[in-house]
């Protein structure tokens, strides 16, 4: 990581700390904000957050590893999460899954080479009446079939 990038990230975290505060309850909100923008929370970012909140970096790491939407490893620019819970499964998740992996040439848990998309599974999205469903970043798409799913993925930058 370049020094300039580090400085920029430090400043960004400082402004988040100013916004959310330095109390422990702010930790999750700060991590969510970093994760939303960078799609992961790097080691350096974790150390900086720990420094501002005056806690051990391991505390920060332990929180990140607990939540499935937070991540310490770099990911793609867009995170696609396909629901694999029972109702979506019965509604045809397998067909969507097969088409999407074939189209992108990656399996679930992987990122495309151009860093455009990371594919993941998720548990129930609360769209059981309209499955199969998937989340693209924070947006939810329902009533998927293999074709619409691929069209959605091809549209995202």
């Amino acid at each position, binding site marked *: 990581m370049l020094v300039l990038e580090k400085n920029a990230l430090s400043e960004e975290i400082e402004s988040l700390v100013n916004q959310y505060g330095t109390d422990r309850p702010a*930790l999750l909100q700060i991590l969510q904000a970093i994760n939303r923008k960078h799609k992961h929370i790097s080691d350096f970012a974790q150390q900086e957050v720990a420094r501002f909140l005056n806690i051990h970096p391991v505390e920060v790491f332990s929180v990140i590893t*607990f939540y499935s939407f937070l991540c310490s490893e770099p990911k793609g620019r867009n995170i696609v999460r396909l629901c694999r819970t*029972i*109702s979506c499964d019965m509604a045809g998740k397998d067909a969507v899954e097969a088409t999407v992996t074939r189209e992108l040439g990656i399996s679930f848990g992987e990122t495309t080479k151009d860093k455009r998309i990371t594919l993941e599974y998720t548990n129930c999205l*609360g*769209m*059981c009446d*309209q499955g199969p469903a998937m989340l693209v970043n924070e947006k939810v798409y329902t009533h998927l079939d293999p074709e619409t799913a691929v069209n959605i993925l091809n549209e995202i930058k």
Partner: protein
Amino acid sequence: MKFTKTNNKKRTGPVLFSEYCAGDAVKKAINLSREDILFEIKNSGLKGRGGAGFPTATKWMLTAAANADEKFIVCNADEGEPGTFKDRVLLLEYPELVFDGMVVAGYTIGAKTGIVYLRGEYEYMLESLENHLTGMRNDHLLGKNILGREGIDFEIRIRLGSGAYVCGEETALIESLEGCRGEPRNRPPYPVNTGYLDYPTVVNNVETLSSVSHIIVKNGEWFKKNGTNKSTGSKLFSVSGDCGKPGVYELPWGTKIDVLLEIVEAKNTKAVQVGGASGVCIPKSQFDRTLAYEDAATGGSIIIFNESRDMLKILKNFMEFFVEESCGQCTPCRVGNIKLMEGITKIENGNYTFAYINTLKELGKTMQVASKCGLGQSSPNAFISILENFKEEIFNTNGKGISYGKA
């Protein structure tokens, strides 16, 4: 491609989906004494709608009686149980019911802050909910001196989860709000005494708070008209799976399962999973059971399986869910779920013994009593009920164990 957030509200019922004008509950509540409100809630017999069914009035009374500088109202919008989506409909279409309920709760127990814990998957709702809160502030239904009444202050803020099912458990939710790993706490002490930041806290489900708004505007007697003696009022059921009309239905407690199946146009039904992955699987022979706290209890999730479904595959899906979502804090849940999963793989491959399966069922029963929170206590439910009720199908000894794949 536009992203979709349509709701499948199929049947408007007599209680929750009855007419309600935004702000009415708050306007009426601040002219009532706290005791009157508690009496009305107690009289209504309202129980927690998240699934556990703890009497709401008792929870409120304990918190109201606690001595503390600060108290909190937390709205549990971490709707993660597989097959549950009623809170999505309430939050998108009836946010006024939820937020008014929170203000009433705050006034009653003497809290000045309400926090909505919205699951990370529902982040797309954030904007519309924040807009609604701004509207309420403009109408003086929120903020300092609500409706011009000196000393009645209440503020609501929304906090997001980050994809952890266990955070729907109230103490885990509080841990998460405090910026920690969402691991459940030992209970007691209960959140009514030491909740968020160790202050007395009421944690209520979205639907519970919505019911409160209606009870305040009408009354407890009106609420009690629907439902059974032990389960008063009506319930939102999130129906999914093999049926003609999946969606959210408001039906009175005490509705029989076969009646519900008829309403949602389910055909050739083999089994119904009541209460989501942590609920029980009810076979055709028991479809005359009623949906109520005292019989087949549910937080709203109803998943329907028709004759073509493979019950072992369904069970496997549920157990995969629990293996992944167990927080790993206590051993019965962390290890037990993995052991049950191994058992399912063995049944799939046909290399099991009944002695082994019986041992696993015993393990499941141990998990039900020894796990720290509701996740581990209820995760063996599906395992035990499906293996018990569908043993002919699963253990059909045709020489190879079982056949799987859709028929």
